[in-house]
């Protein structure tokens, strides 16, 4: 391996530290320690799953050309606002459902709607 301690190992180490700390905290601080551990779990899943690459490919498919993710998003939003693309555009709803699934898989795979769709 190139690194003994990869980014994911650092994330796990900080999660471990926060879980130790949580027991010594009370109220709001303890709650924030829990939220912080969840936030690190999001980072770990984002590193592993790279949802942006999937979103970029799906949006490029809808728009019919390549581009940066920010550029594709801005263009798609602009066309939705002006009405030149809409709910009846072939493939749009399915592509955005796939994008939403990829994002929720990172941000909260325990969310009920994600579990219903993933099962």
């Amino acid at each position, binding site marked *: 391996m190139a690194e003994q301690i990869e980014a994911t190992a650092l994330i796990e180490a900080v999660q471990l530290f926060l879980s130790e700390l949580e027991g010594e905290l009370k109220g*709001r601080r303890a*709650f*924030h320690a829990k*939220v*912080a551990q*969840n*936030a690190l779990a*999001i980072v770990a899943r984002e590193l592993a799953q790279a949802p942006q690459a999937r979103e970029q490919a799906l*949006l490029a498919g809808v728009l019919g050309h390549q581009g940066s993710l*920010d550029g594709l*998003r*801005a263009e*798609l*939003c602009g066309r*939705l*606002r002006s*009405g030149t693309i*809409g*709910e009846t555009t072939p493939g*749009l*709803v*399915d592509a*955005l*459902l796939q*994008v*939403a*699934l990829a*994002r*929720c898989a*990172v*941000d*909260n795979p325990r*969310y*009920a*709607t*994600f579990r*219903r*769709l993933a099962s």
Partner: protein
Amino acid sequence: MANAPTIEQVSALVGAPVARIEALSGGASSATYAVDAVRSDGPPWPLILQCAATGSVPEGGLPRRDQALLQQRMFDAGLPVARVVRILKAEDGLGEGYVMERLPGEALAPKWLKLPQYQAARAGLTAQVAGVLARLHAQPIASVADLRLPVASTAEALARMFANYRRFGVDSPVFDLAFAWLRERVTDRPASAIVHGDFRSGNFLISEHGLEAVLDWELAHLGDPHEDLGWLCCNAWRFGVWDKPVGGFGDREALYSAYEAAGGAPVDRAATRLWEVWGTLKWGIACLQLGDDHVSGRLRSVERAAIGRRVSEVELDLMHIFAKGDV
């Protein structure tokens, strides 16, 4: 942030001895305290003090004095709300706010939605909340004419929500699709009723007997009564109990028919489903706003940053509705 209120200050406010003050929560704009006062004839007098941490309320929210007056009028009209004890004045030095009675019950929806001791309460809750909404929406608008309740027709409210979304400079194709979807379907209705504006399972105080109180009247406004019925059914307030669309405890048709049976106007079923999409999108924009508290530096906090990522849950709910007709 303003200084925390002292026991002497609060005791002077309510005109009774105070044994204890405990901070319950603090946000960017408000602070809530549990106050244990003692009545002159001896028994404990549990109270809640709500005041603006920064001395003012957030843009678009109801001024706290008006919120307290509205709450008191709804109490007088027989709705289940906490009685207001004292509205703060400038010379009290605690910003805008008020003191109300602290009622017994469980406010954490994930608890009362799941624990077995609330089973009977849950069974009767759909009819209870339907009755509360029917009575609220039947209150004449003239009875609150002196309060600064925001007013908007549905078209104006949709335009305001879009402007709010654009403030954050975030491009969400799902949100823009949802705005286009709503513009296609929403008919402009005038504001015709007092709307609670945040009527959801997280704002119900529940005991083993059922509904004790409806909390948090800060977002009350004049609008389309279908808004409250739709917002109550948004997936975010079901806390995982997705197959019970009414707040995680009931069925839509039971809610609508109980509302009509309690004297509510006939429910336009399609309109309430539009308000569910609207409410889902509105919650998504609230997540953007809470995330922006962190990004902008207004309130740097791991909690606010993490809530920003809940936008994904909302996007998935919206796409589930658009792809499958329901969530």
